[in-house]
């Protein structure tokens, strides 16, 4: 019927979106790498008049001290990627380990783990992150990454536990067990390869959420301190001068929007590749 006829069209549109997502993320990564070797202006000294509107010289205008905003936004993409990657790495390392352990543990221990994950998840990411940042010495890039990593780990752990339990219940695991394969080997040879695609999609989604959460933290003044031009802090500074220079309050947000949409589209694309049964449907 019509669903069958529409499927190829829709699939090609989906892969288009995946390509766009990868390109958007790629641009961000390229810009972030570029900032390591080259910047259009010195980010810490004045490059023009105060609060200039966007021009050919200053693509995103200048801030209230006359510093080039485009340069700061470029640096911001490096910070966003660092926080996202760091938080997801911490979350994945802790989350997958705990999730697998919980799935293999005795009933009682498993229930305790599951309850702990649920409580941590009920605690909203931002609130948890605010607490961890407040508990560390001073707000720094590291404390923001750690905070978001801990929040992500609970989500990853719960997902890993559910996925791993499903695999462990399969007959071929029983077969592997009876033929003498040890539990660590079963985890490496059977469980992880099977749950990996789903986890990867989740990591991508968490990456996007971490970028947004980092921006929120630094907007609230709990993120990376001033020399780091985080998008959230740029927006917070620009909010004070929104009457005279509205563009400064728009450009960093656009950069963030581009990155997060790129990540979300890539995550959708990854899901389609990892799970053929979902192709063509949403």
């Amino acid at each position, binding site marked *: 019927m019509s669903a069958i006829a529409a499927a190829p069209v829709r699939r090609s549109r989906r892969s288009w979106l995946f390509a766009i997502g990868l390109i958007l993320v790629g641009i961000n990564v390229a810009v972030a790498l570029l900032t390591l070797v080259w910047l259009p202006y010195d980010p810490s000294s004045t490059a023009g008049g105060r609060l200039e509107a966007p021009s050919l010289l200053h693509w995103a205008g200048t801030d209230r001290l006359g510093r080039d905003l485009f340069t700061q936004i470029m640096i911001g993409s490096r910070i966003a990627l660092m926080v996202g990657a760091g938080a997801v790495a911490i979350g994945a390392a802790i989350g997958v380990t705990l999730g697998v352990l919980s799935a293999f543990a005795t009933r009682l221990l498993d229930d305790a783990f599951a309850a702990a994950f649920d409580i941590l998840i*009920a*605690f909203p990411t931002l609130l948890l992150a605010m607490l961890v940042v407040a508990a560390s010495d001073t707000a720094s890039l590291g404390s923001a990454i750690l905070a978001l990593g801990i929040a992500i780990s609970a989500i990853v752990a719960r997902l890993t536990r559910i996925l791993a339990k499903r695999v462990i219940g399969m007959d071929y695991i029983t077969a592997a067990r009876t033929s003498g394969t040890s539990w660590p080997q079963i985890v490496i040879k059977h469980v992880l390869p099977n749950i990996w695609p789903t986890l990867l999609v989740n990591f991508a989604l968490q990456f996007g959420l971490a970028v*947004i959460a980092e921006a929120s933290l630094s907007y609230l003044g709990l993120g990376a301190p001033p020399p780091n031009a985080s998008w*959230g802090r740029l*927006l917070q500074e*620009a*909010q004070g001068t929104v009457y005279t220079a509205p563009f400064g309050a728009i450009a960093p*947000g656009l950069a963030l929007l581009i990155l997060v949409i790129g990540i*979300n589209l890539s995550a959708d694309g990854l899901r389609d590749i990892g799970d053929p049964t979902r192709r063509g449907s949403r």
Partner: protein
Amino acid sequence: MVLFALLRLLPGDPANALLGVGATAQQIASAKAQVGSDLPLTEQFVRFVSSLARFDLGTSFVSQAPVGAEILDRLTVTIPITLLSFALAIILAVPLGIVAAVKADRWYGAVISVVSQLGIAIPVFWVGILLVTAFAINIRLFPSGGFPRHGWADPLNALRSLALPVLTIGIVMASSLLRYVRSATQDVLGSDYLRTARALGSGYTEALLRHGVRNGVVPIISILGIELASTFLGAVVVEKVFALPGLGSMLLLGISQRDYPNVQGVLFVSTLLVLLIGFVADLVQRLVDPRLRDRAVGSP
């Protein structure tokens, strides 16, 4: 308990917050005795738990005002924001989500989906800043921030100053809620019971209303619980955008001043509210779906 541990990890003695730089050792000792931070940790913990059980949240280190009263006062700002934006999100998301699912192959169905994709990729505070730029500066319809000094004694101005925050949170919440409504509708549309009902002679609309709504609404209710909780916490950030004297600004100020009783109190009340919302959502779900009633409370 988690709260207590995390808060004690905060470096710096709260007594220092009471005094300026260059206080004498004697002053420090008396300040410590006043806030109780010279006691052993176990004793601090026992005091903490016993006073929570009595709903006594202590007094602020900095302002010496009772924390409970201050929280109640600030909730008169935060709770209206939460409820109003939650209502706005539902009003926006439910019809649009259903349209996006039913008319997925039409252009407006696709546009709704794309806009909601944008909505979940935007931090809530940026939406706030954009709305300030658009409404408060160019059109000057609503104030860009602040809250009338006399609060709800001046209801019209109070509502006016809540308009933009509510719009901000409402839009962002609606776009994530919309996705759940859309996929729930899609599940209903593809279901066997709907096909059966149609085959038995029900009209399309009648089948949707009689069977679809009751089935589709079950997963949405548990999502609504989560969304209401995050609406409440979205208010924390948005209060900062609009300089509103709510719970969020109390928390931020408390963290920066190391005012433990204030921070503890806000987090305690927030956690309690979040858990309460989840519990109520669970109960409502059971009321709507008889299949869930047989299962033990607490199991998913």
